[in-house]
């Protein structure tokens, strides 16, 4: 199994470890609920070094990425970050990712750990352009610093004014005496940063942030990473997104630039947009007792009308809610449906999937 550079640190901190995408990763250090609350109220640091970094360099780097990415790459300014997907011809999703544009000849793709090999093969197999694609994943460590105190804390380690790194932009700056790439991005619904650097530098920064932050920061495992992204309805590949689910069905049309360069899957998505998707990701609230989980079927009377993609007791509200793919017209707010939990039908109602309002600093 793969280890990130912070593996020993997690073990020393007493984390409960689990296998995730081929990496031995921390699921939780204290408790998922406590870690979740720390990020919402103060600050948390996550080891996300398992994420993949694919580098595209050369005169036609921008053309290659625009050919694959649902969002507009040519229209991005240098130092901008954009979220979007790579799709198959039929509109199904290869992966969702962040695109970092240094310049039109230098672009970084940050992809899901579970999809690194697939994505790298996908990008290289479409490289009919004058540019070079390399998998840099093993060369970088990455941490996410998320929560209302993130900026104040990180500012203590750099002379660069972090106010200048606005929402979804990045800079290569000196942090804790080392050069790092810092973007104001994250996957929690809070303000915060994602920080990429050399392995030893990131390990050093992790320790320094925890020491400096004292009681106002905690290390956060993958357990709370999932509940945090879930509460703000951010999709997880394999749950809300897959090769069988299109970005439009997942409610991600904001990340599909139909008016920009042609990309693989555009025609299929355009057709789907014109006819309207037959289903979409909704929020569900459980009215009975229990917890609704990924994969449970959803019914309207005797008809199966969807499936749960992610479900939890939302740590902030304490309500049992879920994201689910629901066939129209059962997707309407207030629709009363049933979810089958271990063979028993339980009542649910369709609600807004915004279980918690994002607190981005835009």
């Amino acid at each position, binding site marked *: 199994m793969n280890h990130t550079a912070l593996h020993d640190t997690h073990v020393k901190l007493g984390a*409960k470890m689990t296998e995730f995408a081929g990496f031995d990763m921390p*699921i*939780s250090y204290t*408790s*998922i*609920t406590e870690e979740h609350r720390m990020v919402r109220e103060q600050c948390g640091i996550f080891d996300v070094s398992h994420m993949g970094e694919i580098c595209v360099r050369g005169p036609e780097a921008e053309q290659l990425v625009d050919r694959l990415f649902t969002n507009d790459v040519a229209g991005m300014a240098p130092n901008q970050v954009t979220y979007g997907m790579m799709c198959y011809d039929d509109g199904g999703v290869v992966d969702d990712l962040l695109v970092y544009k240094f310049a039109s000849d230098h672009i970084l793709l940050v992809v899901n750990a579970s999809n690194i090999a697939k994505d790298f093969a996908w990008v290289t197999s479409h490289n009919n352009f004058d540019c070079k694609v390399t998998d840099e994943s093993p060369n970088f460590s990455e941490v996410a610093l998320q929560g209302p105190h993130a900026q104040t804390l990180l500012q203590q380690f750099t002379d660069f004014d972090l106010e200048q790194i606005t929402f979804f932009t990045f800079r290569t700056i000196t942090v804790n005496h080392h050069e790092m790439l810092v973007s104001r991005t994250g996957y929690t619904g809070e303000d915060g940063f994602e920080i990429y650097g050399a392995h030893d530098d990131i390990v050093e920064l992790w320790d320094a942030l925890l020491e400096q932050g004292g009681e106002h920061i905690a290390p956060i495992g993958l*357990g709370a990473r*999932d*509940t945090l992204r879930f509460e703000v309805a951010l999709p997880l590949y394999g749950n809300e997104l897959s090769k069988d689910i299109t970005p439009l069905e997942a409610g991600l049309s904001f990340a599909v630039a139909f008016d920009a360069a042609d990309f693989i899957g555009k025609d299929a998505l355009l057709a789907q947009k014109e006819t309207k998707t037959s289903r979409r990701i909704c929020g569900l609230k459980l009215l009975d*007792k*229990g*917890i609704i*989980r990924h994969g449970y079927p959803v019914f309207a009377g005797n008809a199966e009308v969807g499936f749960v993609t992610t479900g*939890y*007791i939302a*740590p902030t509200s304490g309500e049992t809610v879920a994201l689910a793919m629901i066939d129209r017209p059962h997707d309407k707010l207030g629709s009363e449906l049933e979810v089958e*939990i*271990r063979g028993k039908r339980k009542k649910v109602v369709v609600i807004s999937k915004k279980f918690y309002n994002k607190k981005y600093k835009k």
Partner: protein
Amino acid sequence: MSKIVKGLYYTNTHEWVKVEDGFAYIGITDYAQESLGEIVFVELPEEETAVEAGEEFGAIESVKAASDIISPVTGTIVVVNDELEDSPELLNEDPYENWIVKVDLEDETELNKLLNADEYEDICE
């Protein structure tokens, strides 16, 4: 190191059984609650339902996932610990004090197939 209580019977699916006057009290072990993490819901069976050794009779939900509770014995569930309905966290706090169901045993010799504390300790390592 998780706690193991002497004198109880155990299963390799991490349930414990305490026998008193022909009745079996069934709970989950300290090892089980530790691996599950925060327990947020317990799905309890109805009283007066028949259970069979090796079959699930309920489920424990942690923040992250659901796991079945497997009955170590055959018999009839005569009492369920309904305190767990509102306070599932009791299973984290003291897993050996908070039994889940009380079963009227059909065949006490079945207990011989279960693990003792020492044998259970071996599988937890």
